[in-house]
């Protein structure tokens, strides 16, 4: 039973498309969020290279370091799929384990971002130092906020699973969370490529 094809509607819900209300709303919200990050990335590019003073991107960005943290976030997309599969098979132990792993990977990424921000700060790059600092911190900061909200959401569901409020009957609800989580991962891949990997 593939979760992508199986449109399991919550009990009592009938929809024209066969897609649950929650799932359709999440897809629609993510379309809107694409425009949000699209605007932020566009602003980053509009100001790219218009940095009157340093520190400049190539002086501070540590590509190997951020590659590792990007890999950590990518791995969390794998672990959340494993959590979803476990939930579909009513394997609550597996579900909790993979979900906790996802939460820890997300937290590791956020911790890494925090450490990165602190390092940049000590190297003189702040929110106000130059336009690179301004656009960099706001863009990656909003992404970090998305990751943080995702972690809180996953943590709540992890806790709910212990009191019987998140059961295999709620697989559709959890699926919607995974959509959000994958989206946040994809946005990071784009930011990582455009901000870190593109030669400055």
């Amino acid at each position, binding site marked *: 039973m593939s979760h992508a094809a199986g449109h399991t509607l919550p009990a009592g819900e009938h929809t024209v498309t066969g897609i649950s209300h929650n799932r*359709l709303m999440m897809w*629609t919200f993510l379309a809107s969020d694409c425009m949000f990050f699209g605007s*932020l990335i566009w602003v980053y590019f*509009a*100001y790219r290279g218009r940095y009157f003073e340093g520190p400049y991107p190539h002086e501070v960005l540590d590509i190997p370091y951020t590659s590792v943290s990007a890999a950590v976030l990518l791995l969390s997309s794998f672990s959340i799929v494993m959590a979803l599969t476990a939930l579909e098979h009513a394997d609550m132990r597996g579900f909790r384990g993979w979900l906790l792993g996802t939460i820890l990977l997300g937290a590791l990424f956020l911790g890494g971002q925090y450490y990165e921000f602190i390092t940049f700060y000590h190297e003189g790059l702040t*929110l106000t130092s130059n*336009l690179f600092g301004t656009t960099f911190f706001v863009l990656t900061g909003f992404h970090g906020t998305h990751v943080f909200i995702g972690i809180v959401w996953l943590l709540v569901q992890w806790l709910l699973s212990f009191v019987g409020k998140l059961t295999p009957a709620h697989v559709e609800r959890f699926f919607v969370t995974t959509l959000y989580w994958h989206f946040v991962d994809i946005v990071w891949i784009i930011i990582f490529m455009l901000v870190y990997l593109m030669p400055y």
Partner: protein
Amino acid sequence: MAEAAIRLEQAGYRRSALVEWLTTVDHKKIGILYYWTAIVYLLLAGFLALLMRIQLAQPNMHFLGPKTYNEVMTMHGTMMIFAVAMPLNAAFFNIAVPLMIGARDVAFPRLNAFSYWSFLFGSLLMWSSFLFGHAPDAGWFGYANLSSSRLYSAGPGLDFWDLGLQVLGISSIAGALNFFVTIVNMRAPGMSLMRMPVFVWMVLITAILILLAFPSLTVGLFMIMFDRYFNTNFFNPLHGGDPVIWQHLFWIFGHPEVYILVLPPMGIISEVLPTFSRKPLFGAPFVIFAGIAIAFLSFFVWAHHMFTVGLGPVPNALFAASTMLIGIPTGVKVFNWLATMWGGSLDFKTAMKFASAAVWMLMIGGITGVMHATVPLDYQQQDSYFIVAHFHYVIFGVIVMGLLAGTYYWFPKMYGRLLDERLGSWHFWLTFIGTNLTFFPMHFVGLDGMPRRYFTYAAETGWGSWNLVITIGAFILGLSQTLLLVNVVKTLRQPAAASADPWDGRTLEWTIPSPPPAYNFAVIPTVRGRDAYWIEKYGDGHHTPAATDTMQRREVHQPRHDNPGHSLLPPGVHLPKPSWWPLIVSAGLTAMAAGMIMHGTETLGPLGFPIVGLGVFVVFFGLLGWHFEPAIEHEEAHVSQ
């Protein structure tokens, strides 16, 4: 049926009227809340307009003074767009869309309540700026860096504007998500997309526009917030910042916003004209695809607001061309409306008067729109009263008149009573005369060079006489709106005697009683074509009329309930449960915005972040409570007596 159903109040669901309104998740009640809040704001923001008109009635007046004038002008524009036109649209989304698609409620009833409360609190937050003596004063599009620098706009006025708009934006996005899912997922059996009423189509398109256009404004407002609070350099040219970036972000939102405002009233016009012409909408698929084309093109025209910025001849030419393209689908709509009326047996009820006048106003506002799509002409007209005339013809002439048509048309569905036609006729004619007397002479003074936003002008300009005419027109326009209130009060004092189908309507909302019971449809109807009810009543050449009960005819004969919320529930119908959480989460969200505003002030600064924290706390636990609360009435409430 009677023995299977139970009375909700016997199951412990009796609530005081106030609590009922505060916790309601019924789309019909939320629609009424939206409607009256927006009408009150219409009168308030209209009052601000009259203040401006007194100031401008003659040259060198000292009625308002420049500072107050800027505040009054900014609040008039901002509130009319975000707190009047959009919520009035949302009111009719709520009042009509679920009924027109044969649904019992929207997809997310509590999210719907959240949209309303965030709109109410966000707009109250902005209005409250007057109480603190610092209303926003940078115009409704708040150009950076006037708006982004505390050097140029000291005091919390622009903070009220920035954060208030963020709350209103969240409200709009939540509403758009809700209605998108509702329309896509909850249509009655048989209602394919092309059988949807045109109003529902326009709401669907509007929802998509809101979802794709608002994030750009959100990002821009965040940038202004960062510049104002954390000394970033987004719009500070000294550090390479570029104020034109704000203009791009704002108008990438701002032009689709025009269609967010106008498409739903165009939908209302597309419902009212066929009903009172007793003909189907001419070329309905063309009207629908024209709406889609307008929405698509609206994302590629934003720089026509920026022709004089100096983007260069190539961008200006491209944006001029794309702007003129929008004239084509708009023209398609106008011709289809005219062809709908052509040869119809026209019945000029008040709704019809407003709708057909709106078509005419759209022609005037549309033609001037094509005029300033031409770059050299726009160089002359930019920031003159000609522009003010143009967009007021669209915003008042089409949008408000369309919404007034909707008011007279759907009032029986809101209150079970028909508004008085005689008073309605007076209301229409005075509004029509007032509109044209106010906004048409603005073309003349605009072409004569009178700039917009200036708080006064010299006597030698010779603009005084036309401005006096405009002011007289504005007072006729403003005062005539009280006729609507008089009409409503008079009508509500009469018994609710409207029939289910007073206009001989075409769509599903007319199959159920006026006002509808809480559950809307006892039996979900099956739809056999566009103009679903009309086909059942009269056939359409392919289908024969239904002999008896296929649509909801028996519903029409159901006993009338004075309080629809406490009516008998048909078996198997589950109503959404009233909830406090939407109100609480909205309050938390608004507390976050209010805390940020306080943080920017000298006296209340230290309180700011604690209140933001409190807001985050309330939102988080509010969402938890929301999550734990069952969304529909408990099963035990349905146990038969």
